[in-house]
Each structure stands twice: as C-alpha cells, then as structure tokens.
C-alpha cells in the first residue's frame, strides 16, 4: 500500500522570459508523495500551479530544482510512459481523425496488438458514449465530446498511473459522475490516480488525499477526512417517524445537550436530481446527437466481474442497498444515539 508512485521533494518551477530572467515562480518548494492505489487530488484556485506540477510529473516541463520520481524513474524516461495515462487540461487531438482512428492511433503508440486495440477502442467508445460518433472527425466535436475522447485516450493502455488535469471540466453532470465512478473503479483495482481540480465537491467525492496549492506553495496536505471532519459536531439522519416519536427523540436530545438541536428535511443534492431527470428523458428518446448512453466503465478497466457488477448502474440515483450486517451496525449506532438519558 505504501509503495510510492510519485515522489516530489522541494519541487520548483520558474518560468523565464526571453532574456532568461525569472518571470513567474509557478511552483515553489512543493513536496508530496503519492502511493499506489491512492486517489490524490491537487486543489487550488486558477493559476496556483496545478497544471505546472502535473506537466513536470509528465516530463512536459523540466523542474527548475527539486527531485521528482515517477514510477521510480525520472519523469523524462520514455519507457515508464507505457504505464501512464494523461488527460490534458484541454483537448489536443487531431481534428481530421475520427474518434475511432484517434483511439486506435494512440493504441498503436503503446504497441497494442491490433485485436486488443480494436477491442479496447470499442469498449472505450461505449464507455464515453460516443459509439454512434465513431466515424465522425474529432474536429467537429463539442468541447465535452472532445474531452471524452481525451479521457478515453488516457485509458487506452490500462495505465497504472492516471493523471487527470481537471477531469470534469467541460463535462455534463452525467459525465462528471461517470468520471468519478471511473476513478473509484480504477482505485479499486489498485491503480493510482492523480487529479487536479478546483471543483471541491468532485475532489471530496473521490480523493483519498489532497494537497492544496496557492500561489505555487503547499497550503495544506492530508486525507479528506482529516481535513474536513468537524470532530465536535454530529448529524443525525432518520426515516419518517411519527410526531410523538420525534417529540420523544427531541426531548431526549434536549435533555442530553441542554439546548435545542436543528431539525429539517434532508434535500437531494442537485447532481442527483439532474441525473434522474436526464435518465427519464433518455428513456423517452431514441436518437442522440451529442453524447449517447454511456455504459459505466470499460470492461477491461473494471477488472474482475464482481467489481464490474458493483459499478454496473452508476447512473441510478438510489444508493446501493446496505448489507444486513451494515444495516444492523447502523441501527445499533442510531439506537445508541437516540437512547433517552437514564
């Protein structure tokens, strides 16, 4: 678990102008380690150095100082690239190639045998919902469609390390959700994911650990729970109860805390609501010009059958039913909580 995939020590990047004078210190003394199987998030406002850090990890930019090792080698080592998948900030694909040709081309760069390449291409196209557009040239694609192609090409080699620069930017909520599911699926298979984003909810949903950059400097580093948990407060969620039941519960709480707890109805979040609406609409229409029905995660990426099953219906808004044991544990906890004072 603690095998380091990326190690950065005192990383620094200074952009210079034509006269070699330092212009911008985009990354300033950044150190962190990403371990195998982790989903690691780079957070920060615009211009804080996220993309610069990622580009250094990819060997696109050379660090001004500091040490950087990726998969145990220099980031400029060509061979390790076989194990890396990269989704850039924007889509940089060849406008005259069709989506299928694009994926196939990148497959060739990994020396994938023809059969394998074709199979993966098909599956990826299914996954990103662009099967119907596989003979269309990428140049005509909308931003989100192009991003999806970008995502697909990043995964064609079934990489061990996936680097995603703002993976959800330009994507519709379904795409966002799918990407998040994908990231989880990859992580579940022991892959390492490094992503940057300024959409905090995304990061919160998927990341194990995050680093927060501001002005090129590390501001905070840790697991999501470490960073976000407010250890001094509790929140209680429960199914519909009768008025008397609620009264009794509240009385008990009041008696315990000595003051009034806040009570309201839980709301569905907008993401979930949107997903439901689109799902309904999709069932009503048959033809799509944009993104077609996407199918979860490409089979080869999902790995074993069980996991596949688990991730089968990511667009279904209902949470997965809890197992009996989990149910019991939850009940137990709740019971403890609402138990009236002795």
């Amino acid at each position, binding site marked *: 678990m603690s095998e380091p995939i990326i190690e950065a020590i005192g990383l620094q990047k200074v*952009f210079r102008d034509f006269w070699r004078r330092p212009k911008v210190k985009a990354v300033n003394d950044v150190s962190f380690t990403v371990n195998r199987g982790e989903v690691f998030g780079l957070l920060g406002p615009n211009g804080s150095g996220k993309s610069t850090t990622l*580009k250094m990890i*990819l*060997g*696109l*930019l*050379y660090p001004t100082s500091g040490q950087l090792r990726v998969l145990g080698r220099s980031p400029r080592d*060509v*061979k*390790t*690239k*076989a194990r*890396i998948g*990269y989704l*850039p900030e*924007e889509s*940089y*694909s*060849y406008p*005259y*190639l069709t989506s299928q*040709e694009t994926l196939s*081309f*990148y497959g*060739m*760069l*990994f*020396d994938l045998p023809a059969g394998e390449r074709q199979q993966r291409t098909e599956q990826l196209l299914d996954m990103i919902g662009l099967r119907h557009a596989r003979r269309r*040239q990428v140049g005509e694609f909308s931003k989100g469609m192009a991003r999806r192609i970008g995502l697909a*090409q990043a995964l064609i*080699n079934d990489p061990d390390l996936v680097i995603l620069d703002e993976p959800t930017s330009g994507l519709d909520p379904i795409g966002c959700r799918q990407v998040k599911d994908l990231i989880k699926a990859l992580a579940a298979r022991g892959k390492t994911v490094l992503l940057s984003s300024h959409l905090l909810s995304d990061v919160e949903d998927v990341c194990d650990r995050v680093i927060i950059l501001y002005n090129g400097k590390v501001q905070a580093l840790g697991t999501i729970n470490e960073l976000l948990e407010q250890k001094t407060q509790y929140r209680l969620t429960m199914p519909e109860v009768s008025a008397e039941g609620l009264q009794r519960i509240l009385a008990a709480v009041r008696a315990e805390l000595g003051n009034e707890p806040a009570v309201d109805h839980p709301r569905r979040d907008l993401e979930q609501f949107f997903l439901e609406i689109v799902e309904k609409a999709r069932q009503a229409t048959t033809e799509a010009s944009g993104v077609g029905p996407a199918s979860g995660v490409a089979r080869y990426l999902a790995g074993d059958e069980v996991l596949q099953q688990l991730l089968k219906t990511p667009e279904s808004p209902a949470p997965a039913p809890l197992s009996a044991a989990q149910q019991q544990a939850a009940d137990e906890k709740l019971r403890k909580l609402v138990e009236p004072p002795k």
Partner: protein
Amino acid sequence: MNKVFAIAGIAIRNAIRSRVVVVLLALLLIAIVALPLTIKGDGTLTGAVQVLLRYTLGAVTMILSIATLWAGCAAISLEVQERQVHLLVTKPVFRMQLWLGKWLGLLILNTVLLGLAGVASYTLLRWNLRQDDVADILVARRVVNPMPLDIAADARQIFEEQKRRGELPPGPPDQVLEAIQQSLRQQAYSVPSGLARRYVFPVKPTGVPLVIRYKFASSSTGKEQLACLWIAGSPDRADRFEKPEYAAPGGVHTVRIPPAMVDTNETLTVDVANVHPMPLTMVFAPDDGVQLLVQETSFEMNLVRCLLLELVKLAFLGALAVTIGSVFSLPVAAVTAGYALLLMNIGGYLQTLIGQKMIFSAGAQPGILDLLVHWIYVILYWLTKPFQQPSALEPLAAGELVSWTWLGTIFLWQVVVAGGAVAAIGVWAFNRRELGLPE
C-alpha cells in the same frame, strides 16, 4: 517501428483530409499540362522535348520541394503549437520515432506524388510525340571520357633530357616539371592545321551506334568554320570510318560512328585531323572537348532513376525541414528553411559572384565593406556547397545517362550522411526541448 508508421500514417491522413494533397495534385497537373502549352523550344523537335522534360519535371520538383519544406516545417512545430505533441511525448514514443514518423510521412507522400507526376508527364510526352520518330531523342547515353593522356612519363622524359643537356630552366625541380606537364597538356589539346590528335575511349562492343560529341575553340578570333576530319577505328584497319566536318568553333557538334569500329580490346580509337587550309588551330577543351556517347539503357529507365534521384533530394529536404520545424515555431522555421533552400539553389550564382569578383567595382580598390560582403558570400558558398548537387533533370533532358552509381552516391550522401546528420541534430535539439512551454 510500428509507432513510426503510425505517426507517418496520421501525417498522411491529415494531409489527405485537409485537402493539401488534392491541391498539390492540382498544381502538379497544371504544371504538367499547362507548361508545355506556354513554353517555347528552340524550334527543333529535340529542343521541344528537352525543354518540355526539363521544365515540367523541374516545375514538379520545385512544387514538391516547396511543399516539402512547408509541410516539413509544419510537421512538428504545428503540433507543438497546437499542443498535440503533449499527447505524443507522454506516450512511450521516443522523440526520434516522432521525428522519423513525420519524415517518413513526407517521404511517402512525395513518392506517391512524384510517381504520379512522372507517369503523367511521361504519358503526355509520348502522346505529344505519337507521330514523331523519337528513337534518337528519347535516349539515355553514357558519357565516356577518353583515356587520360600519359603526360607524366613524357614530361619526366623531357625533364631528364633537358637536365642531361644542362638546359633546365632555373627554379625548383618540381615546379619545372609541373611547367613542362602544363605545356604538354596544352599541346595535347590543341590541333594545329595539318596535324591530328588521337583519342582512345574504353567501350564495350555493343552493336548500338556511337556518337562523338566535340567542342573546340579556334585560334582565330573570327567565327569561321574549320574543316576537320574524324577518323574512327583502330589504325591498322583498312575500313576505318571517316567523316569530314566543317565545324563552327564554340558550338557542340556530333559525329555518328558505326559500332563496328570498336576494337576487340574494348577500345575505340578516334583521330581528329585539322585539315583546314588556313593555318588555324583547333583547341579542344580538356574536360569535355571530345566525349563518346554510348546508348546504355532505355529512356524510361533513365526517367525512373532521375525521379528517384529527385526523390532522394526531396528526402533530404524533408529531413532538413522536419529538423528546423522541431526547433523553431512555424513562421521562423518556414523562413529559415526557405532561406536554406534559396542558398542551396543559388550556389552557382554565388560561385560566379565570388569567382568573378563581381562585388568589386571594376578597377577600383575594394573597400572594407566590399571585402566583408565578398567573404560572407564565400562562407555561404562553402557552407552550402555540399548540398549543391547538379540536377538530374539536365542529363535526362539531354539524353545522358543518370547512372545507378550517381544515384547511389547521392543517396549515400544526401540521405545517409547529410540526412543522418540533420536527423541527429534535429532529434538532439528536439530532445532538449521543453514541450510544455508555449511557443
């Protein structure tokens, strides 16, 4: 290698889908079809054929050269600019493979286009000539130079003779010897009236007619023709071939010689006698004064070799352009490459400039500036000299052989040596480049 082909493949696909290829084909077709309609020959059929070949194929290679330069410069620099290269170098692709892929794509396109253009111009040529007898025009003859004169031995003999008699002029012996050789050479190439001079050509008996091509200057300043007699065949034969000629000095003339005159020892002896009644001397140029032309292969094979040779040059140009494009951004690269092409093509002009000291105004003492400019030209000339190969179109049009040896040498030089060096520089520079930086 697959990766190289994959990269070449998308380069070609891009060229086709962005209609570059169609536009090029159209341009080539216009050149091939329209040029012959507008070009003036010298009024002879041979001239018409030569000009047609020279100009249509010249236009074709020029169009392709410019297109190659542009496309080559754009190949990598545009990808850097559009950042598509980010997705290439984050894959397990060596930059050399990327370079090779781009170059190979260009080469394949060039091969196809040049091939099509060659077929089209050949077809058009044959169609234009469908009613003419072209047996003597569409030829491919090897140019055979006479065996070198053995001047050294004679000079040595004269030297010894003079030494023995104590008549040796003052000066270091090797310079005296050199002077003797010089004057012997001079004598050997000039034929005063009433005298003859013998040339011996190494040639295998082939049965095809042989042609002597000669050119001389007259010791008279006038332009009057001189009477000379050409005699071919070994001197002990009774049936030596004789042909009197009344030839104009300065012009290039030919004499046909029956193939039977070739000797059993695989030589052809040719005597030229100056039989002019006036005391005028014929002076043959030492390098191309008298040459033998031997039909060697078909015109078609010559055309193929000529096109291959042009392809080799395009391959080098492609390498140069891809390298420049992998170092500079497109506008800079295009200007640089264009300049390089220009320099390579005005080598002759530079040579004339420096050789005849045309920069200096006649008579005046050259100033510092004149000298400076002169030396800049000299440096430019020497820098570009290795890349100045004579065009294969000239001999093709003139009906001279474009030999495999020549093709091989040019290939070795332009593709293997020069192309390799350019590629190495390109890959080295490209490797050092931080591609994440914007242009």
